[in-house]
């Protein structure tokens, strides 16, 4: 059970290996890596800066992880989220879930990334060639994705 909030990049292979090392009770590991995506010209993205709320970010990600563990039988779980200034193609976030059963791993992974988008206290400032600097609005589609896990 691990939550990391950091400026540095992370090694996806090493992170996933860490979930299963020395264990033989895990049937599947699901993961999602979110990346900084460029936009179509003329609105090319120069960089994206992620501001966050130190202290609350770690607390909120830990709460999300506890919620996933309460809902699905997970062997292990990992969330790494970066902050600071990132350029297109860079990794932002890793969510990984390990379980004896593939459905639990897949569903918990989707749940965590959907909820993280609407619950973790991050804000994105885009710098684009055409429009300069601009705070990214929250998306209604993210609220809908998170809402489907309520019930």
């Amino acid at each position, binding site marked *: 059970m691990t939550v990391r909030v950091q400026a540095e990049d992370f090694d996806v292979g090493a992170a996933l290996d860490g979930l299963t090392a020395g264990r033989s009770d895990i049937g599947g590991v699901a993961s999602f890596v979110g990346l900084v995506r460029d936009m179509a010209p003329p609105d090319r993205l120069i960089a994206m800066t992620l501001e966050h709320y130190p202290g609350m970010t770690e607390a909120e990600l830990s709460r999300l992880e506890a919620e996933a563990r309460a809902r699905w039988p997970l062997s292990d779980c990992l969330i790494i989220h970066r902050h600071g200034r990132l350029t297109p193609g860079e990794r932002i976030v890793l969510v990984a879930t390990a379980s004896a059963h593939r459905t639990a791993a897949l569903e918990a992974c989707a749940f965590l990334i959907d909820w993280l*988008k609407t619950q973790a206290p991050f*804000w994105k400032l885009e710098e684009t060639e055409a429009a300069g600097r601009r705070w990214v*609005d929250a998306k209604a589609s993210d609220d809908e994705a998170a809402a489907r896990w309520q019930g």
Partner: protein
Amino acid sequence: MRVLYFAWLRERVGLAEEEVDLPPSVTSVGELIAWLRGRGDNYAAAFARPEVVRAAVNQVHAKHDRPIAPGDEIALFPPVTGG
């Protein structure tokens, strides 16, 4: 009471955080926002649309009707965009 601002709220207020002394009539997140609006043009611009402002009390998401008390850490921010 400690109040923190993030993202464009921080930019409009011009502060990342401050200590405020609240009148006894201010007892909820929503009342705090209304009170802050009256503190100057920068606050008026930041809180022009209170309905888009989100809050956390002691690092837990909170609605505008959430009671607040001296010693609480209150954070005010736009809707989050993590991931």
